[in-house]
């Protein structure tokens, strides 16, 4: 590095503290996540971990008592949105462009399911996310996923701005 080069400023992650464990913003703003009982387990720079408690109503295959794939999609979509929120420097509206989920094996019945999403690349308009979901151990996932998200999708802006405003009021 040339001697006169300015040091790179540390990256700012605006939302980690807003949406971390015990903060309800990410769930209360999303009625369906609250309905499913999704909670935030952990957040950090550009990643988020969410959990979905097992419920009989979520079963997709009664013979095997396996949770329906689509419920896992919701968990992964939610964790992915959280990862993007924890990756951007300033809160903006986030809209899913696409999401692909691979079902590696059946999830075990009666266990809480977890998903971790990492926003591995952020551009001005698009965020790229990969995610895994597991039941017993993060080393043995039953699903993996890839998603892309649009940043600054303008119709959602007002709502997100209001959410940030609420948050700021609480924090100050």
């Amino acid at each position: 590095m040339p001697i006169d080069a300015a040091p790179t400023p540390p990256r700012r992650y605006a939302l980690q503290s807003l949406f971390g464990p015990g903060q309800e913003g990410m769930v209360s703003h999303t009625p369906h996540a609250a309905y499913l009982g999704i909670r935030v387990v952990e957040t950090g720079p550009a990643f988020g971990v969410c959990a979905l408690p097992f419920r009989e109503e979520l079963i997709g295959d009664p013979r095997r008592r396996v949770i329906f794939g689509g419920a896992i999609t919701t968990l992964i979509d939610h964790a992915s949105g959280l990862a993007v929120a924890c990756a951007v420097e300033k809160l903006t509206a986030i809209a899913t462009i696409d999401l692909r989920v691979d079902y590696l094996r059946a999830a075990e019945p009666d266990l809480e399911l977890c998903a971790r999403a990492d926003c591995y690349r952020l551009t001005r308009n698009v965020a790229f996310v990969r995610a895994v979901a597991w039941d017993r151990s993060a080393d043995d996932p039953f699903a993996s996923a890839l998603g892309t998200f649009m940043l600054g999708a303008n119709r959602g802006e007002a709502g997100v701005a209001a959410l940030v405003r609420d948050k700021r009021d609480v924090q100050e």
Partner: protein
Amino acid sequence: MNRIVDLIPYARFLGVEVERTEGALECILPFRDELVGNASLPAVHGGVLGAFLELTALLHLMDDSGNERVPKPITFSIDYLRSAGPATTRARAEIFKLGRRVANVRVVAWQDDRRRPVVAGNGKFLLS
């Protein structure tokens, strides 16, 4: 026709109904506040739409085969085309390859206008 919906607890949880329209199986997702993902628009949760598409594909396969065994999803991929507002969403699936072991299915969902889809999906299922 709604009997196959009753076989899947998650389908009842979402409140999905099934109709046969113009000879095609059509799945219906009536709007409810519990399905909202973004409270400020409001818009149906992306995960719910993905699940609804996957369910439509699954019910279509079960209806087509007359088998009550639920096919296993291998992979499902979703394109979000428009925000889905507080209205009824409808979906239709099409099997474009039915192999001995794997079925390839496409699904499209719309709200008031079939020509303006809100979400589209593409899934591969293992037939047991």
